[in-house]
């Protein structure tokens, strides 16, 4: 993230939310922020969560198989970002997500 010298009164908010799948992973976020103008307002926020056992069980109790449930939860998590993307990217991103999720739970 770069705020240049002439960007007077610039405003930025960066958010990094990570969702962990399985027990063998972690997440590290490295925000790079360079600000050249002292009037800028800059925020950074990061969070890490996992697919909760409770969420999975809730879905399964509602007849949704565990893989579908995981994919539903991940898609929900990503929706906030996807809905900001132009249509063609959003569709592509959704497809990529469903491909990479196959066989990751269970």
């Amino acid at each position, binding site marked *: 993230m770069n705020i240049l010298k002439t960007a007077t009164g610039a405003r930025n908010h960066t958010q990094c939310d990570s969702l962990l799948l399985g027990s063998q992973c972690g997440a590290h976020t490295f925000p790079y922020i360079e600000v050249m103008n002292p009037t800028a307002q800059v925020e950074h926020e990061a969070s890490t969560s996992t697919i909760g*056992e409770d969420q999975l069980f809730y879905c399964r109790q509602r007849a949704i198989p565990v893989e579908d449930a995981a994919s539903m939860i991940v*898609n929900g998590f990503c*929706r906030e970002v996807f809905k900001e993307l132009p249509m063609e990217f959003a569709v592509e991103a959704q497809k990529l997500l469903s491909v990479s999720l196959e066989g990751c739970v269970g």
Partner: protein
Amino acid sequence: MMLQIRNLRASVGGKEILRGLDLDVRAGEVHAIMGPNGSGKSTLAQVLAGRETYDVTGEVLYEGRNLLAMSPEQRAVEGVFLAFQYPVEIPGVGNLYFLRTALNMVRKQRGLEELDAMDFLALAKERMKLVEMDQSFMNRSVNEGFSGGEKKRNEILQMAVLEPKLAILDETDSGLDIDALRVVASGVNALRSKERALLVITHYQRLLDYLVPDRVHVIANGRIVRSGDKNLALELEKYGYTDVEQDAAGATPSAVGAMP
């Protein structure tokens, strides 16, 4: 017999919570399960729904089949429904979409055609009237930002849509004000039928004023220590659980074994 439980034991982390529980439930019956905190009521609900965190032994027959051998989703498609004590939030997943996915899984099992979004919306709208739910709920994420009462109503809506054979309501009345309690109870009452059995776990007699049970059971120390008709609930309301807890203590195998 819809549900036959024999010598059900469940433990978590080496601690035994259910200690040889027996229970028979027929189709069409409403059974209330009462008991003090920590007696095993919620554990029973979770074990019947297939929660995998417990070590379970004993026998549970559901329509004559071994329930304990089924996965949670299998139990659900076969008609076992749990109204959660603490319904889970799933951010970003629409309530309507979630419920339609669930219903279509159940319909597939029953050999019925999947419902498309339009047909489903009509069904959902109709069932939402049962729990006096506003349509705006359907476009929000599953339980996200719902008040306690809204979450409980949402559980009953899901039950109304999924039409289970065996519904287990785990403290559906807790955290409800008197108006919400009436709405939820009348929703559940409307779902009583000859083919459906209800297992209603509750702390309070209050709910049973609206939802009159056929049988009332008291759990203490992980087993049923007393069973009776609806009057048992009134008696408990008046005298508390002290007596039944003493009964339970007297009935433990070690105490019996120690007698000369």
